[in-house]
């Protein structure tokens, strides 16, 4: 019996888009009898489950609800209705360099960012050398990161994120960072995670990557799951919908 690490049951996520950010805008709206909120459905009654060790790809056009799924798994958002079960430590690669402060040094930011991602001081101390080694920053580690190039910045951020040792890894369109050799290193690291049996949920527009890397794909369309299954079939369906010729 395979264990499911992520289970979505009839999950709906509606946003109450606030039309008014200040009282000045809110008051006239209430007086005119308008609702202060505008509902928007990002996910409409979706259900799926992910077995442990699966690399799941999520594809679909912009605004189809892909990132909302990741945010629900990361528990950043709560569903409007339905049940979500997530079993294991989640490392969100949604935002690289969360909480980075430009005035602080690379070293200080490693401790800051890693603690945001949920590491204890002991974990960080144990992984510190590896993080620096992987990021290839070497001597720059004591410099404030505002002096870093954007490539160096992303390398540091990515290198911290992958050393969190999660059992569930969430990735949102990030592997366009760094130069080619660093990208190759990142893919190698992801393959390593896949072999170790880490559950990976992967949002991307890169269909080649999806075909190569994922065991299973969910194709999102208009806030609903349009297809779930074989990567090749899912990509085909997505491409057909994109170019209906």
């Amino acid at each position, binding site marked *: 019996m395979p264990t499911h690490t992520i289970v979505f049951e009839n999950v709906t996520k509606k*946003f*109450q888009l*606030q039309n008014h*950010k*200040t*009282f*000045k805008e*809110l008051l006239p709206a209430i007086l005119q009898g308008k609702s202060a909120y505008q509902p928007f459905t990002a996910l409409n009654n979706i259900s799926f489950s992910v077995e442990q060790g699966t690399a799941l790809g999520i594809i679909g056009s912009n605004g189809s609800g892909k990132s909302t799924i990741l*945010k629900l798994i*990361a*528990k*950043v*958002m*709560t569903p409007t209705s339905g049940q979500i079960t997530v079993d294991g430590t*989640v490392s*969100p690669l*949604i*935002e690289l360099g*969360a*909480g980075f*402060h430009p*005035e*602080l040094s690379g070293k*200080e930011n490693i*401790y*800051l960012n890693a*603690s*945001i*991602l*949920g*590491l*204890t*001081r002991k974990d*960080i101390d144990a992984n510190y050398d590896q993080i620096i080694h992987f990021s290839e920053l070497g001597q720059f580690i004591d410099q*404030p990161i505002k002096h870093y190039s954007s490539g160096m910045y992303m390398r540091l951020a990515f290198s911290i994120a992958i050393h969190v040792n999660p059992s569930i890894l969430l990735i949102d369109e990030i592997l366009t960072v760094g130069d080619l050799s660093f990208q190759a290193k990142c893919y190698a690291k992801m393959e390593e995670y896949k072999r170790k049996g880490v559950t990976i949920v992967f949002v991307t527009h890169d269909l080649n990557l999806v075909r190569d890397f994922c065991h299973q794909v969910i194709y999102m369309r208009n806030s609903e799951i349009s297809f779930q299954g074989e990567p090749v079939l899912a990509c085909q369906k997505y491409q057909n919908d994109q170019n209906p010729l």
Partner: protein
Amino acid sequence: MSEIWEEIINISKRSELLRQMVGREVKSRYKQSILGYFWVILNPLAQMLVMSFAFSLILKIPTNASPNIPYAIFLYVALLPWNLFASSLSSACNSLVSASALITKVYFPRTILIISSIFAKIIDFIFASTILIGYMLILKIPVNLNILWIIPIFIIQQIFTLGLALFFSAANLLYRDIQYLLGLVLFLWMYLTPVIYPADLVPQNFRYLFQLNPMAVIINAYRQTLLGGGQPNFLSLLTALIVSFLTLYLGFLYFKSKERVFADNI
């Protein structure tokens, strides 16, 4: 109540995060400034000197109950904790909004953002207090064991601050007006609290209102124990404690009721 215990346990599991967030706040503030952390001492000192000039030399506000105390010290004993209160609230009020990138991406107990911004201000307060201690030593102001009362007084102040901070930060996330409203409230509140004047100048028939203002009780209690060498008024302090706990409880409930939609609305 069980929700509060749950939150405390969750926060204690993320103690490293709390420490890092305090460190981030403290370390980053004065980077690329020449005087650096010295500003923390310089600011209230300059404030105290100017206010002493205006209120003592020109307006001649008496120090009543403590006649031998120069007005500058009389003021500073109240000004430091007041500044701590006011700056903690303003900084905590914006702490959720300025961490919007974190709130929409990573999960952790959100109360850590509020608590860490208050802790950072407490560290400032400790540095700023060194001037007061030095000043009191130079003027040989007698102190006795009653000085230990400042510990429970300080704790009551922090309970009250945290309660208000939870309310204002969550409200400010939903409506950005709150930060401006808070600025106005703090400005008025300072004059309704015996910071620049002694509590016994307050007319008798307004006294009961002051009892209900925990900051008035707290500020007055600092003065009684530090400068008068006496004990605080226990009944007033107990009232302040109850009001503070009630504020914390209600603030926490409000925060929790809005927490689910933080990431949707920020």
